[in-house]
C-alpha cells in the first residue's frame, strides 16, 4: 500500500512538472496568464505530493514495513527509533527522495513569495525549478525508486550503514547539506529566468539575495558539521581528507562565496555581470556535479553510494544544464556589458574582483585534483590517486591570500581610497600581523605558510573588529548610547554588512584553528597494561583502568576506561570504544575527545588483548585550538542569521516615499 502511494505521488509530481514547464512556455508565448498561473499551482501541489511521499517513507521505516524496497535495504528492527527516522537519507534512493522534498519546498516558497511580481522573470524561474524537479522525480520513479515492492517480505533488514548510526551528527549533516545544495537552485533558476526573459539588471539578484545567503549558510554549516562528524567518528583526529565527496561539497561553497561578494559590486556599480551569472551557474552545476560524483561510482571515495545506471542520468542532466547555461550566456553577451568601470586599484571593487579570481582558482584546483584520476585512466590507462599532498600544497597559499583579503576588504571603501583612509584602515591590522608573526616565530613555528596564516589571521581579525569598534564609537558620539545598545543598533542599521563581518570572524576562527591543530599536533601510540600510565605532551597523563564490554541490540561494544591527569591531578575520565556492528567484520571506533579551548585530547582504542583484557593499544592525539573550528562554524551561522535580519527602518516620517523605496528594496548602504 505504501509502495503504491509513494510511487503514485511521485509519478503525479513528475507529470505535473512536465505540464508546468509546458504551461509556462505556452503561457508566456501566447500571452495566456492563466497558464502561467496554473504552473504556480503545480509548484504548490508538488510540495504537497512530495511531503506525502516522504511522510509515507518515514512511516514505512518506523513501522518496519519491509515490503517497501528502501526499508528492506536500510531498515532493521534493532535500530533505535532516532536512527530509523534519519535513515531516510542514509542510502541513495531515500536521499534523493529527501532531496526531492527540499526542492519542492524551495520551489513552492520561491513561487509564493514572488507571486505578485509582474513580468516573465518569475515564471521563467519557476519553469527552471520545475525542470530540475522533473529530473529528480524521474529518478525517483526510475533508477532510484525507493518504493519498489519486495516479495516475499523479509522479516528483518540489515539496518543503515554503521558509520551513519555511530553519531548524532549524522542527523544534522545531510539535511543541512541538502538545504544548502538545493537552496542554490533558487538563485540559479532566477539567473536563468533573467537570461531567458532579458531582464538582466540586478533585479534577479536582489530578489534572491536572501535565498543565496540562506543556502550558503546551510552549506557552510553542513561542511563544518561534516568535518566535526569525521573528527568525532573516524579515529585519526583529522577532519578533512580531500576525499572526492568532501571536495564535491566544497567547490560549490567556494563559488557561492565568490558570488555572495561579487553581487555587491553589481548592485552598486553595475559591473561584473558576467562574473555573477557565471558564478551562480557554476555553483548550481557544481552541486549537480557533486551529486554525480558521489552517486555514479566514477571516483573511488569513502562516501560513494552504489553504482548502477544512475550515473548516466546525472551525466545527461549535467550535459543539458551545462550546454543550456553556456548557450544562454553566450547569446546574451551584448546585454551583459558593464555599465561601470573600476575607478582605482585601491578600492573595494578591486578586492572583490581579486576575491573572485582567487576563489575561482581555488575551485579549479580542487576540481582538477578530484577529476585527475579519471583523466589519467581515460587518457593513459594508469591508476593514480591525488591526495592531501597535492591539495595542501596548492590550496594553502590560496587560503592564506584569502585570509589577507578578508582583512583588506572591510578596510577599503568603494570607488577610491584616499591615502588617509588607507592608513587608518590598514595600519592597525598590519601592526597586529607583524606582532603575531614575530610571536609565532618566537614560539617555534618555522613553516612559512603557517606563520603567514597566523599573521594574516590577526590582520583580518583586527580589521573586522575595527569595523564594529568604529561604528559603535560613532553611534556613541552621535547618540550617547551605551556600548551594547550602540552595538545592537549598529548591527540592525545594516544587518548585511555586520552579518558579513561576523561571518568573517567565524572564518578567521576556523582558519586559525585549522592552522594551529595541523601544525602543533602531537601523536603518541602505546600499548598499556591495566594500571599503566602514558605521558603525553601538554602536561597530560593517561591511565588505563579497565576494559569492558556491553551488548546492544544492534552492536557489540568494547570500551576502555581511561583516567586523565593534568599536572599530576585527576582531570576527568575518557572511554574510547570499538563498536562491532552485526554483519560487518571491521569495528567502528568511537574516539573519546576531551575538548577545551586551548586543545583537544583525543584518545582512540586501537586494539585490545582479546584473552583477558589485560592490555590495550591506544592512539593519543593532542591537537590545539580544534574547538575553534566548530565555534568558528557557529559564528559563520550567526553571521548569516544577522545578515538575514530585516533592516531597521528609519522612523523619521518626513523623509517620505524616497526612504520607503530604499527601505523596501534593501539595496545596500545609503551612503557610498
Amino acid at each position, binding site marked *: 500500500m505504501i509502495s503504491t502511494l509513494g510511487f503514485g505521488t511521485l509519478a503525479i509530481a513528475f507529470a505535473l512538472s512536465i505540464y508546468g514547464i509546458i504551461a509556462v512556455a505556452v503561457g508566456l508565448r501566447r500571452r495566456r496568464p492563466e497558464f502561467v498561473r496554473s504552473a504556480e499551482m503545480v509548484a504548490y501541489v508538488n510540495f504537497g505530493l512530495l511531503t506525502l511521499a516522504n511522510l509515507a517513507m518515514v512511516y514505512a521505516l518506523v513501522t518496519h514495513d519491509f515490503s517497501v524496497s528502501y526499508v528492506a535495504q536500510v531498515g532493521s528492527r534493532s535500530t533505535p527509533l532516532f536512527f530509523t527516522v534519519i535513515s531516510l537519507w542514509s542510502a541513495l534512493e531515500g536521499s534523493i527522495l529527501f532531496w526531492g522534498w527540499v526542492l519542492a519546498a524551495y520551489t513552492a516558497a520561491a513561487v509564493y513569495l514572488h507571486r505578485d511580481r509582474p513580468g516573465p522573470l518569475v515564471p521563467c524561474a519557476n519553469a527552471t525549478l520545475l525542470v530540475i524537479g522533473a529530473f529528480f522525480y524521474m529518478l525517483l520513479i526510475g533508477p532510484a525508486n525507493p518504493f519498489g515492492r519486495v516479495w516475499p517480505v523479509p522479516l528483518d533488514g540489515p539496518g543503515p550503514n554503521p558509520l551513519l548510526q555511530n553519531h548524532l551528527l549524522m542527523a544534522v549533516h545531510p539535511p543541512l547539506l541538502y538545504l544548502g545544495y538545493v537552496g542554490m537552485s533558487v538563485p540559479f533558476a532566477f539567473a536563468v529566468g533573467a537570461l531567458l526573459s532579458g531582464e538582466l539588471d540586478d533585479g534577479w539578484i536582489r530578489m534572491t539575495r536572501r535565498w543565496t545567503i540562506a543556502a550558503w549558510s546551510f552549506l557552510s554549516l553542513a561542511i563544518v558539521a561534516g568535518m566535526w562528524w569525521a573528527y568525532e567518528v573516524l579515529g585519526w583526529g583529522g577532519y578533512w581528507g580531500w576525499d572526492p565527496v568532501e571536495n564535491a561539497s566544497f567547490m560549490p561553497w567556494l563559488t557561492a562565496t565568490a558570488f555572495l561578494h561579487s553581487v555587491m559590486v553589481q548592485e552598486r556599480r553595475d559591473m561584473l555581470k558576467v562574473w555573477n551569472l557565471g558564478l551562480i551557474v557554476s555553483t548550481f552545476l557544481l552541486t549537480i556535479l557533486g551529486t*554525480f560524483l558521489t552517486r*555514479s*561510482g*566514477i*571516483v*573511488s571515495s569513502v562516501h560513494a553510494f552504489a553504482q548502477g545506471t544512475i*550515473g*548516466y542520468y546525472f*551525466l545527461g542532466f*549535467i*550535459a543539458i544544464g*551545462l*550546454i*543550456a*547555461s*553556456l*548557450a*544562454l550566456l*553566450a*547569446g546574451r553577451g551584448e546585454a551583459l556589458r558593464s555599465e561601470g568601470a573600476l575607478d582605482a586599484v585601491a578600492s573595494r571593487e578591486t578586492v572583490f574582483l581579486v576575491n573572485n579570481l582567487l576563489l575561482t582558482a581555488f575551485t579549479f584546483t580542487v576540481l582538477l585534483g578530484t*577529476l585527475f*584520476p*579519471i*583523466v589519467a*585512466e*581515460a587518457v593513459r590507462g594508469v*591508476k593514480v590517486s591525488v591526495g592531501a599532498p597535492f591539495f595542501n600544497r596548492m590550496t594553502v597559499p590560496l587560503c592564506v591570500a584569502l585570509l589577507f583579503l578578508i582583512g583588506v576588504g572591510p578596510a577599503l571603501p568603494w570607488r577610491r581610497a584616499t591615502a588617509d583612509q588607507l592608513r587608518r584602515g590598514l595600519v592597525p591590522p598590519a601592526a597586529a600581523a607583524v606582532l603575531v608573526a614575530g610571536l609565532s616565530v618566537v614560539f617555534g613555528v618555522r613553516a612559512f605558510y603557517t606563520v603567514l596564516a597566523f599573521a594574516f589571521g590577526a590582520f583580518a581579525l583586527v580589521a573586522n573588529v575595527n569595523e564594529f569598534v568604529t561604528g559603535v564609537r560613532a553611534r556613541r558620539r552621535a547618540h550617547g548610547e551605551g556600548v551594547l545598545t550602540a552595538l545592537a543598533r549598529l548591527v540592525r542599521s545594516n544587518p548585511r554588512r555586520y552579518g558579513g563581518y561576523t561571518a568573517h570572524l567565524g572564518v578567521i576562527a576556523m582558519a586559525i584553528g585549522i592552522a594551529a591543530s595541523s601544525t602543533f599536533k602531537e601523536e603518541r601510540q602505546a600499548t598499556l597494561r591495566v594500571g599503566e600510565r602514558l605521558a603525553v605532551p601538554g602536561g597530560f597523563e593517561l591511565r588505563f583502568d579497565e576494559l569492558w564490554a556491553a551488548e546492544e541490540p544492534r552492536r557489540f561494544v568494547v570500551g576502555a576506561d581511561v583516567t586523565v591527569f593534568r599536572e599530576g591531578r585527576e582531570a576527568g575520565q575518557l572511554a574510547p570504544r570499538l563498536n562491532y556492528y552485526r554483519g560487518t567484520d571491521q569495528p567502528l571506533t568511537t574516539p573519546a575527545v576531551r575538548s577545551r579551548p586551548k586543545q583537544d585530547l583525543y584518545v582512540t582504542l586501537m586494539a585490545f588483548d582479546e584473552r583477558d583484557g589485560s592490555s590495550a593499544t591506544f592512539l593519543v592525539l593532542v591537537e590545539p585550538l580544534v574547538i575553534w573550528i566548530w565555534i568558528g562554524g557557529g559564528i559563520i551561522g550567526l553571521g548569516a542569521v544577522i545578515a538575514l535580519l530585516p533592516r531597521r527602518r528609519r522612523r523619521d516620517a518626513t523623509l517620505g516615499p524616497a526612504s520607503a523605496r530604499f527601505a523596501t528594496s534593501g539595496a545596500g548602504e545609503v551612503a557610498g
Partner: protein
Amino acid sequence: MKLRSVLIATAVALPLLALFLRGLGMDPRYIPPAIPGQPAPPFELERMAYDPEAEPSEPTSVRLDDYLGHVVVVNFWASWCIPCRQEHPALVAAAERYRDQGVVFFGILYQDQVRNARRWLAEMGGEAYPTLLDPGSRTAIDYGLTGVPETVIIDRDGIVSYKRNGVVTLDLLVREIEAALARSEEAA
C-alpha cells in the same frame, strides 16, 4: 536561444562530458594485480629485527631492485593466519635447498604487529629468511593481495613468473623455482 550559441556551448562542454562518459565505464576500485608475465611491482621495505636485543643484521632495509639477477620468492604472511603455519616448513625447506643457487626468500608481514611476528617465528623454529615490514600494506596492494598466505616467485629479470593465492607445498615450490631458474638460464 540562437543556434550558434548552442553550438558554441556544446563544443565547449563536450570534452568534459566525454570524459565523464568514459569515466562511467571504468571502475575506480579495480587495481590491476601483479600477475605472471608482468614486471614485479618494486618495493623497498624495512627489515624486521628478529632479536631486538642483538645488533641489527644487514641489510636493514631491502629493495627488490637490488636482487635483479636472482630468483626471488616473496611470501605474504601473518601470525593470525592459520594456513601460514601449514606452509611455513615447506618455505623454510625450499629456502635451505636453493640458498646455494642464489635464490632469495623474503617474508612480508601483512596487517600484523612485530611483537606477534617475533613470537610466531620463535614458535616455528626461528627466522629462516628475512621478514620485511609493510606498513599501510602498500606492497600488498601492489601485489594484488586478496588474503594470506600468498606467494610470488620473481625470475632473474624481475618478471613475476608464478603467483599462488593460498598454501604452497614443497613440491610446488620446487617445481616453480626450477622453472624460474630454467627460464632465466634460457634467456641468458
